[in-house]
């Protein structure tokens, strides 16, 4: 018992350390970019392969992946349609901030600085409600059935984004989405947005770590272990599963809104089935059994892709996009063969082995 208490204490300290480390890392990178000590910019460290643009994307997708990891790693429910929730958030923000002012709906309000923030909240509410409606009946089924339902849902939403010309602009999407602002303080250029995105990502990680170490987290893990056993012990499994699905959808929606305000233009492609699959790949590659798998997974996949894009042609003469995808697919397969629990669990295991030796 004491051993266990100690273990938990250790885990919590490790998590606190991790959050601090990530916060400092984010701060230092941001500071380097802003202050440019000795005329060095962040991208010089990476040979120009990883830019601030990429870092912001990693931050945004980290928010999605934290939700996905809670859903998959802790509640054991696979989602193949997370990009749909991401998309609903993005499109809600885009529609509310562009169409409303263009058509003069609520003229005074839709031009004020807090309107986009309200749109983000509305998006989160809509997505959460949607997830609740679809989740309640589907989550009664087990195992891969949520994956199948979310797969269907994701593709339906994508087709609606693509075909709903009047609202979503069809294939061209919606342009002219305004930047976020607080009062007259605009959260742009890109460095400011970087701090906003990563601050939100850090808060989301902290909240998720707290959930995992709470009563709810224990209930979720019990569901993952054995749903029947959890049920017998009085855990309302259906309720918890549906709550986690809603939470993951709300986080995806938040990230989608941040993405819309970052790009200032959205089109259906980033919300397709392929995007959902990529989110799943990131999540599993990072390791679904840990919140820390989220930033790891996104960063790894992004860095691998950026490096391949920037460097592959140097090794392989005349390499193009096809070659990148071939290597990318092989990397995913190899990671899954050698670290089926994902990178975080794989690294932890390797560390433990090194310590013993």
């Amino acid at each position, binding site marked *: 018992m004491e051993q266990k208490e100690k273990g938990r204490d250790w885990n919590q300290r490790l998590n606190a350390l991790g959050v601090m480390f990530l916060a400092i890392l984010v701060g230092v990178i941001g500071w380097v970019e802003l202050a440019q000590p000795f005329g060095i910019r962040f991208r010089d460290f990476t040979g120009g392969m990883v830019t601030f643009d990429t870092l912001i994307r990693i931050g945004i997708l980290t928010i999605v992946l934290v939700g996905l990891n809670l859903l998959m790693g802790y509640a054991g429910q696979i989602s193949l349609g997370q990009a749909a929730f991401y998309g609903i958030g993005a499109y809600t923000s885009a529609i509310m901030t562009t169409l409303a002012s263009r058509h003069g709906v609520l003229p005074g309000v839709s031009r004020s600085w807090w309107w986009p923030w309200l749109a983000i909240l509305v998006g989160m509410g809509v997505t959460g409600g949607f997830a609740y409606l679809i989740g309640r009946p589907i989550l009664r089924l087990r*195992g891969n059935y949520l994956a199948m339902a979310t*797969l269907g849902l994701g593709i339906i939403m994508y*087709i609606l984004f693509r075909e709903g010309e009047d609202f979503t602009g069809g294939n061209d999407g919606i342009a002219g989405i305004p930047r976020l602002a607080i009062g007259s303080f605009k959260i742009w250029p890109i460095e400011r947005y970087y701090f906003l995105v990563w601050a939100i990502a850090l808060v989301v990680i902290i909240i998720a770590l707290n959930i995992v170490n709470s009563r709810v987290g224990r209930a979720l893990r019990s569901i993952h272990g054995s749903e029947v056993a959890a049920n017998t012990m009085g855990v309302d499994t259906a309720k918890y599963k549906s709550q986690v699905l809603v939470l993951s959808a709300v986080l995806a929606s938040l990230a989608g809104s941040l993405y819309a305000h970052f790009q200032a233009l959205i089109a259906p492609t980033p919300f397709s089935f*392929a995007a959902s699959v990529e989110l799943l790949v990131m999540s599993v590659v990072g390791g679904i059994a840990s919140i820390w798998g989220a930033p790891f997974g996104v960063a790894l996949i992004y860095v691998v892709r950026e490096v391949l894009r920037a460097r592959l042609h140097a090794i392989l003469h005349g390499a193009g996009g096809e070659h990148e995808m*071939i290597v*990318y697919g092989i990397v995913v*397969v190899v990671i899954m063969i050698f670290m089926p629990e994902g990178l975080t669990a794989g690294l932890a295991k390797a560390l433990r082995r090194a310590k013993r030796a």
Partner: protein
Amino acid sequence: MNQRVGVAKTESKWKLSRELVGKGVTVAVILGVIAFVLFLGYKKHFETRHYLQLAIDGIRGGSIYALIALGFVVIHSVTGIINFAQGEFVMLGAMLCATIYHSDLSLPPVLKLALAIVLAVAATTLIGVVLERITIYPARGSPVVALIIITIGATITIRALALLAWGTRAKWVPAFTTLEMEDLTFRFGGLIVKAQSFWIWGAVAVVLAVLFYFFERTVMGKALRACAVNRRAAQLMGISPSRMSLLSFALAAALGAIGGIVLAPATRPTYDMGLILGLKGFVAAIMGGLVSSPGAVLGGLILGAAENIGAGVTSAGYKDIVAFVILILILLFRPQGLIGGGERAVEEG
């Protein structure tokens, strides 16, 4: 399990009424959908023959979904994996067939086509076997999610290799009857049926007959079925699960390749045709409860007809949505599959 039986006994009365309500809702949903389709068709001045024509064309595509769905069912019931590379087998079959046919072999076209078909099926089967050995076999015993991600990674690589080998241009395979690009068409009353449709239906019928023989009459087929019923027990009977996994991938690859080849003359195959076909085949497999072969075939045919009619009464852009709306309706109201048999899969997840 026992606990469930106990609950069922005390709540049998409730359960009965709930089942009745459930059936009522299902029927109401089906009637509602049919009424909606008829209303849309009425606005477009559709007559019965329009619907029949759409259904016939749809069943042609649906036959291919049926073959893909069978591949999903075979692999899923033996290994528990949902193989996302299933659609790529279809693409490989079609593209390899086109490539071999257009190579400069000096043979009469008939022989050349026959050779192309045989070689394409053999090559795709070999690719399925190699895929299983180098990706699934080394990861055996990993969580199923990891195995599914492996098939996704393989899909990405296969598609990129296809893009590298064949480019983005569409290929063509001659119609089997005329050996030209143009196919014969038959007219029955007001209905038009292309000759290739008969080839497709014929191929599906032959494949089903062979599969039936294989599963019911051969030791290997029975071993595969035993593995699907209970992997552990099958292993204790001396059946190697690893060999059965290999066999299931070979079978699924061959089924996909045959589907791709017979479909190729009716549509012009491209390197990226696999994704959507694979997903539709997956929906068809779900319609059959993911474990039932007859269910998967029926699912494929119904799906093909339904989506073509759906696209006919709305617009082509919405064609793909029909399959996934059906998927969600099936999961909500009939997760065990249209003709049942999937109850065990629903229980085990």
